[in-house]
């Protein structure tokens, strides 16, 4: 391997290529748009709960759905899970989510309903 490329303590000089620059600009646009959208969703969730006219049986599933949408936007737009070369990262995270989905209702039932 070329020693110049493998020295990790050398400062990186220069800018990105035109192609990368374009890609970064597009990425930044997507991220700002998703940020504005997340602010909007958060406000909707708070308003849903703050207004007394919306019944709980509608409000609770609705704000949970908003939370899931927001988290997916974080994971895919801010944390780049959809970029190439993220296959294993997706597997790691989704395995965690899979276990989490079973953990939450199990604990709710065991200590909330059965009450050991």
């Amino acid at each position, binding site marked *: 391997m070329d*020693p*110049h490329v*493998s*020295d*990790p*303590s*050398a*400062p*990186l*000089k*220069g*800018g*990105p*290529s035109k192609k*990368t*620059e374009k890609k*970064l600009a597009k*990425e*930044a646009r997507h*991220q700002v748009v998703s*940020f504005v959208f997340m*602010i909007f969703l*958060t406000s909707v*969730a*708070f308003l*849903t*709960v703050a207004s007394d006219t919306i019944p709980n049986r509608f409000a*609770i599933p609705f*704000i*949970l759905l*908003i*939370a899931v949408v927001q*988290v997916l936007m*974080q*994971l895919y737009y*801010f*944390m780049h899970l959809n970029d190439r*070369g993220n296959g*294993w*990262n997706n597997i*790691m*995270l*989704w*395995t*965690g*989510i899979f*276990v*989490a*989905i079973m*953990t*939450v*209702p*199990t*604990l*709710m*039932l*065991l*200590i*909330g*309903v059965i009450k050991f």
Partner: protein
Amino acid sequence: MAQAEEVKHDQALPPYPEKATLEGKNKFLGFWFFLGGETVLFASLFGTYLGLRNGVADGPTSQELFHLDLVFYMTMILLTSSLTSVFAIINMKKGNYKGLLGWMWATVALGVAFLSFEIYEFWDYTVNYGLGFSTSAFASSFYTLVGTHGAHVLFGVLWISTLLIRYAKTGLTLTNAPKFYTASLYWHFIDVVWVFIFTVVYLMGV
């Protein structure tokens, strides 16, 4: 030793400086493995909270305690800090090291602001409402869940500050690029957990 100095040639910025070395790739993969584990950790705390949240004994209930305005400010602060760390990483990929450091400092400042709100909140509950850690099952599970998240924010603040001070003058290298990148992933994950905390704990508890 003189030879080691000579190796330090400048090199061109790769498109993904955080994944350009094997070490960087390993850090990246290992960090996602860690985040999968963190997901399960928080799931167990959420499950416990949801199971115990009605067990208020004679202590205050969540309806008496929670103030939506405070939680709204905290949510906005944390969401904005997520965006500043995104800007930091974009600057890193552009090779703008000053921009990376500046946006990371902004992230740290917002994290500290969030923590101050949370400390005020816990102080308010303990002193003004008499909700101690062992007042009720609700109190214990609430403080454990939200406190664990707060501890993660504190750890993130300390971690990113350490990186910023340690690498204040080195410029962007293939060694520190993965470190900054994983720190930003950690910060986003903190925000992901907070989205569920404000929804499940605060909005469903008012």
